[in-house]
């Protein structure tokens, strides 16, 4: 038996392909939406992976440093480093800000990392050009997504920094590229007040008889020094000695340092299930709407194509064609349309993914799931048309 659907498709291939392309662009948008979500999850995981930490020690009762503000003194790091099972510990700061560069603003996450010895958690990884920060001040390593080049000078708050290295895939959970500074520079950028604020603070201290007791000017100097300096960090990143359970060390830090500690799994949960949960739901809603729109379009197209063949269907039924043959013809056309749409959509999504401002990750597993979803949607969408075809009375071919 010949394929009636195949012949019909070949006969009106132009209409069929154009419709498939239209549907494909819609499927491409759907796949891209899934890719945007995967990209967000991957960004979050890259952030954790690239920090090379096993534990995140943060301010007590906060979800810091990525989901909530967290501040703890740099000195918290020393007792942690001395604890059993801790291999390395390093303070780190995170600050998302806009940096003006070459006439346009670039949104970056400024990361302050301890550069005292190589390999400490929080330092930039995936260096693709240049070198690490080796000087104590005014050097920076940037992710390529910032658009900065080695040798560029960028201004962060009051100071300018020279880009000495470039990384790839070093981004925040929001997809902003990272700009690494030494911890001291980053603390200054994050916590140092501007000159006017310092002058006003000093005047207030000088006017206070408690902070500036008569006959003892050293007290006011000490107060000013404390107020203008800042050695806080947002978190202490900890690596664990091989063979020691992270949960055990985390529990020990919680108990003895009275700080909040997250393991990798807990931090991943915070980032993926809490921080980007709303975005994920938003994207999920888009996916549902796009799936419904795709189904409606396929249903409408197949239904219209079927109605255009009512007379032929009546003739086919009159000359003895089985209902199942006619149903299969319509279903094959719907599936064919879905197949063309999926191929076009997959190609389109792959072509335009690099042009998205945020990372779009198109997973093969999502494509496979998408393919079966498209086929299921097309099958459902053909039901209306099949019903219409089965209602056709063969007597219509005779007329009268």
């Amino acid at each position, binding site marked *: 038996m010949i394929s009636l659907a195949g012949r019909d498709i070949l*006969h009106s291939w132009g209409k069929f392909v154009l419709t498939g392309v239209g549907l494909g662009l819609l499927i491409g948008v759907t796949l891209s939406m899934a890719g945007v979500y995967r990209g967000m999850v991957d960004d979050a995981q890259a952030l954790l992976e690239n920090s090379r930490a096993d534990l995140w020690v943060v301010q007590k009762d906060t979800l810091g440093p990525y989901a909530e503000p967290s501040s703890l003194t740099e000195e918290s790091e020393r007792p942690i480093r001395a604890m059993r099972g801790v291999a390395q510990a390093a303070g780190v700061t995170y600050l998302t800000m806009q940096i003006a560069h070459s006439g346009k603003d670039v949104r970056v996450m400024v990361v302050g990392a301890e550069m005292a010895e190589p390999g400490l958690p929080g330092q930039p990884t995936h260096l693709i050009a240049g070198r690490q920060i080796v000087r104590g001040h005014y050097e920076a390593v940037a992710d390529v997504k910032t658009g900065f080049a080695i040798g560029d000078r960028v201004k962060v708050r009051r100071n300018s920094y020279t880009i000495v290295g470039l990384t790839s895939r070093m981004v925040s959970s929001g997809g902003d590229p990272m700009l690494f500074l030494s911890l001291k520079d980053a603390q200054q950028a994050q916590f140092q007040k501007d000159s006017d604020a310092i002058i006003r603070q000093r005047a207030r201290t000088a006017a206070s008889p408690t902070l500036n007791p008569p006959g003892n000017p050293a007290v006011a100097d000490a107060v000013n020094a404390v107020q203008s300096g800042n050695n806080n960090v947002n978190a202490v990143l900890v690596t664990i000695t091989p063979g020691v359970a992270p949960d055990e060390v985390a529990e020990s830090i919680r108990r003895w340092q009275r700080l909040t500690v997250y393991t990798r799994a807990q931090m991943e949960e915070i980032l993926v299930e809490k921080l980007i949960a709303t975005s994920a739901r938003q994207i999920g809603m888009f996916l549902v709407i796009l799936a419904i729109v795709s189904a409606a379009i396929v249903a409408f197209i197949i239904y219209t194509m079927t109605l255009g063949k009512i007379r032929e269907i009546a003739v086919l039924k009159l000359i003895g064609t089985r209902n199942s043959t006619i149903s299969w013809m319509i279903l094959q056309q719907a599936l064919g349309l879905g197949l063309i749409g999926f191929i076009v959509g997959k190609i389109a999504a792959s072509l335009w993914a690099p042009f998205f401002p945020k990372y779009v990750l198109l997973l093969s597993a999502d494509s496979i799931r998408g393919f079966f979803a498209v086929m299921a949607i097309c099958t459902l969408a053909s039901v209306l048309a099949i019903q219409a075809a089965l209602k056709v009375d063969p007597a219509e071919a005779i*007329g009268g």
Partner: protein
Amino acid sequence: MAEGILINNVVKTYGSGDTAVHALRGVNMAVAKGEVVGLIGPSGSGKSTLLKCLGAVIEPTSGRMTIGDQCIYDNGWKVHDLRALRRDLIGFIFQAPYLIPFLDVTDNVALLPMLAGKPNALARKEARELLNALDVGHRAKAMPPQLSGGEQQRVAIARALVNRPPVILADEPTAPLDGQRALAVVTLLNDMARQFDTAIIIVTHDEKIIPTFKRLYNIRDGVTVEEAQVRAA
């Protein structure tokens, strides 16, 4: 002469009670194998209803219908699979050819034997032979819109004949054709009826072809009357 079609007292009533419409009030017809008869009558007289009943498309209310030796209806269908009955025992020719536009001429004809389960190659071979016999073999690869009206109707005749059905029902097959072509189609149907021993009923309004029938049935208000023989055999 052996009967190809025998219709006894077939009644078809649409609806019931006061709103009942009596489309056929007891039709009687007999068409021998190899014979072509005409069926005429004004609009609304019941011609199409009779074709639909005989074509197993609608069920009569009562009566008896026989095709060859097989009783297909006797106050109820005697055949379980009406679709197979239409496919194997009845050929249809319509007012317009109604060829499947996405199949070429050969496959339009070969579709029926394929539906009956014949292998594609054999079905196409039979279709090509028939198309050659009907003088449209040279258009075997053409698509329906590329054919003239006369060629399309010849292909439709080939489609009706390809399964060698004992009966062909033709519903105004010459309506879209000019006088010469209309006569050519009727001549062709007569030739085919003789060649394949097929009983053919042609419903028509076409004044040009009415004189060509040896026997003619006139249907009025749902009752058939056999007209006088128009032309000597």
